[in-house]
């Protein structure tokens, strides 16, 4: 299966497979449903016919036994043994006569009493009934038969009961010379004789036409099939739409990240659907993790005309190295992606975004880009030490703290104004030189609002240091500018006290969330901070994004106004002015 070009993302055939399989399942299900419904309707129809015909046959039985046991003996008593009045003494004559009368009011039922050798030629068995005679005669224990019989193009539900001669019947059905003369006068000597007691006399049968009902049942299930088919396709359309939104589009984004081709290079994936391709990609990530654990990464010595010296700090997906220009000895910093991380195309996409941001954004607190060599950036020299080093030795002084935050807030405001969210503000990537000048050296997890976010699209879960992440980021959502404000709150607290606003021993994400929800004012600072400073830090640390500062500028305005009262509630001796270059 070839991966084909589809819009701006490459996509394989997950959607088609989903569609065809769902269509097959839905159509098959619809077919099964309508067959089941037809079968059930037919079963109910049969049960109904069975009950009705049984009633009729029982009735006939009752008439015949009444004639045999009550009427005929009474007639003999009144008129003598020689007299035979057919209308009052013949079971067959009376029962067929009564049933043909009731058939007039119920034309849908037809009752027949047939024989292979009847007195009345109208009661002669037809070929099917002839067969049934044989069937009953084969085994005298067979007392009942029911089934569907086709006659003249119509279907009937037929119930049949065999009837055997008793001794009292033999007078009329035995030897012809013994038979009453009234009988012979009416039917002649042709049929109905030479039987003995115990012979199969005839079959009583009731036929109920079922063609119409069967046709209705069949039509009903056809309608049902059509309806389920229509409904299924509507459902299928909805499901495909949902599937496209929830799965295919997001997969396509991830796929475009893992499958982007360098010119001249062949794509590393060329078979299977999206999931297969991603499976391969995550396989590559696994091999990265294994090799990284072994410490397989090598430090480069030269990049173009630059000599790489020792690393200064680690970002999310890259190192910052010291270095210099080989010829002129001019000092520079180099941003070099973690060799093995970049084998994962998702992180590679993040690095590309990061490099682009360094090139696009300009701010006093961002080192200037001198040159881009492939996926490496040559930056102006970054001096000083990271904020985490400084905080290891204790809190920042008030003056320095406010100076650092004036720069940091302005930097973050510039990011947000440009539609960039940093997502990973922490003291390890903030460098301070001797003059207190701040430099941010990493934007590895930053996003731009007009660009696809690979981390979100891949559903990679929380990225970054859980200590500094906002609750919504820990929950796996991709944060907005207010998540950066949360990180600023942590940094602010950390810088003022030298301690984090919560202890570090929490391990799982759930524990972190619970902990970040519970922090209370004064928990850890124990009164070492001024009321108004703590107010600012805790507003930035609000669990719900809506309760935080919505804008970095608002946070800085309150923080900047503190200079008079101070961070710790003491007056500041030499209040150094800071550069606030906010505003347009």
């Amino acid at each position, binding site marked *: 299966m070839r991966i084909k070009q589809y819009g701006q993302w490459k996509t394989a055939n997950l959607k088609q497979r989903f569609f065809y399989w769902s269509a097959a399942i839905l159509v098959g299900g619809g077919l099964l449903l309508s067959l089941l419904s037809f079968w059930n309707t037919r079963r109910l129809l049969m049960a109904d016919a069975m009950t009705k015909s049984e009633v009729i046959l029982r009735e006939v039985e009752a008439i015949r036994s009444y004639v045999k046991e009550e009427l005929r003996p009474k007639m003999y008593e009144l008129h003598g043994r020689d007299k035979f009045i057919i209308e009052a003494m013949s079971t067959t004559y009376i029962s067929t006569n009564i049933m043909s009368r009731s058939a007039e009011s119920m034309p849908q039922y037809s009752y027949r009493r047939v024989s292979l050798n009847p007195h009345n030629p109208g009661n002669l068995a037809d070929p099917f009934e002839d067969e049934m005679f044989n069937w009953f005669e084969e085994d005298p224990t067979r007392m009942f038969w029911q089934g569907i019989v086709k006659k003249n193009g119509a279907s009937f539900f037929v119930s049949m009961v065999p009837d055997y001669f008793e001794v009292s019947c033999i007078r009329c059905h035995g030897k012809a010379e013994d038979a009453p003369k009234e009988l012979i006068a009416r039917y002649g000597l042709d049929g109905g004789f030479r039987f003995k007691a115990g012979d199969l006399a005839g079959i009583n049968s009731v036929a109920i036409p079922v063609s119409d009902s069967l046709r209705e049942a069949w039509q009903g299930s056809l309608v049902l099939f059509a309806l389920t088919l229509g409904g299924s396709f509507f459902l299928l359309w909805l499901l495909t739409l949902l599937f496209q939104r929830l799965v295919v589009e997001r997969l396509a984004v991830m796929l475009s990240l893992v499958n982007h081709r360098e010119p001249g290079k062949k794509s590393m994936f060329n078979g299977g659907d999206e999931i297969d391709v991603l499976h391969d990609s995550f396989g590559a990530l696994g091999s990265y993790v294994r090799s990284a654990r072994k410490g397989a990464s090598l430090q480069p010595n030269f990049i173009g005309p630059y000599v790489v010296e020792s690393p200064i700090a680690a970002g999310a997906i890259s190192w910052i190295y010291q270095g210099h220009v080989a010829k002129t000895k001019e000092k520079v910093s180099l941003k070099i992606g973690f060799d093995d991380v970049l084998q994962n195309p998702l992180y590679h996409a993040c690095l590309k975004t990061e490099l682009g941001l360094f090139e696009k954004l300009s701010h006093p607190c961002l080192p200037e880009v001198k040159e881009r060599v492939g996926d490496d950036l040559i930056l102006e020299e970054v001096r000083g030490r990271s904020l985490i080093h400084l905080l290891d030795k204790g809190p920042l002084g008030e003056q320095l703290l406010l100076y650092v935050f004036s720069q940091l807030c302005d930097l973050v405001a*510039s990011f947000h104004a440009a*539609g960039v969210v940093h997502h990973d503000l922490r003291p390890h990537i903030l460098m301070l030189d001797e003059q207190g000048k701040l430099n941010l050296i990493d934007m590895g997890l930053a996003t731009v*609002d007009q660009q696809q976010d690979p981390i979100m699209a891949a559903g990679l879960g929380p990225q970054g240091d859980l200590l500094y992440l906002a609750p919504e980021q820990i929950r796996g959502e991709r944060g907005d500018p207010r998540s950066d404000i949360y990180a600023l709150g942590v940094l602010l607290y950390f810088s003022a006290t030298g301690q984090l606003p919560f202890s570090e021993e929490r391990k799982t994400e759930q524990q972190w969330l619970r902990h970040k929800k519970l922090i209370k004012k004064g928990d850890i600072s124990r009164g070492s901070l001024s009321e108004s400073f703590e107010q600012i830090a805790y507003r930035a640390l609000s669990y719900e994004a809506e309760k935080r500062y919505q804008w970095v500028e*608002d946070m800085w305005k309150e923080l900047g106004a503190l200079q008079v009262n101070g961070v710790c509630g003491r007056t500041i001796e030499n209040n150094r002015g800071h550069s606030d270059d906010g*505003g*347009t």
Partner: protein
Amino acid sequence: MRLMVFSDIHGNLEALQSVLADAAQRNVDRSICLGDLVGYGPNPNECVSLIRSLNKCRCLAGNHDAAIFWGMSPYGMTGAARKSIFWTMEQLTPENKNYLQGLPDRLDILNMTFVHANPYNPRGWNYVLDRKYALRSFAATACRNLFIGHSHRPMVITRKNILSIDLLEVSGSRNIAVKDTKRRIVNCGSVGQPRDADPRACYLVVDLKKEVFEYYRVEYDLEKTVKAIRSAGLPALLGRRLMNGT
């Protein structure tokens, strides 16, 4: 947070400079430009470069910006507009053209949405000036405040209920305090070619904390722009429109 919202500069450098100088005194934290940086006016390059150099300023694409790189056809425009677009195409530097091409159509920030013309069909460039299109715009967004430009007429449209609106044309410099939580469409007017019979440049500052829309009208050197239009060989009608504010 004080947010400056301005739009429709249309290559009028004098107006843009005066507006920025005025805004510099008003404690603005960030600014958003709703597009139409070029077209009509005589200084497209200078205006685009000035906007690009602004700190904490975000810019959207307008129809005239889109016309520069044929994102919409200049042949659909009126005669004077079309002529000035072709003239501007020749004037703009490649970097400035690239900048215009990279501008987004829409921004959503917290409970605010920003577009040049309308949110329901951003590249259809309909004017939102009446009930029908205002209601359609409200239906197409979920934000509380929608900021638009394009019609060059400062205006605040308040949604009263699902069927009716309140339309307020804003004249002169004026503060409009918001006292309820109703949804609004706010047109920030035009910097470089006002069309509400007031030739002064118009811009808006939104004070998000106090919930006030502050409209400002700024005088600028009209004569200079009109002269520049003439010497650039652009239609004289464009100069007259600036003088009359139409």
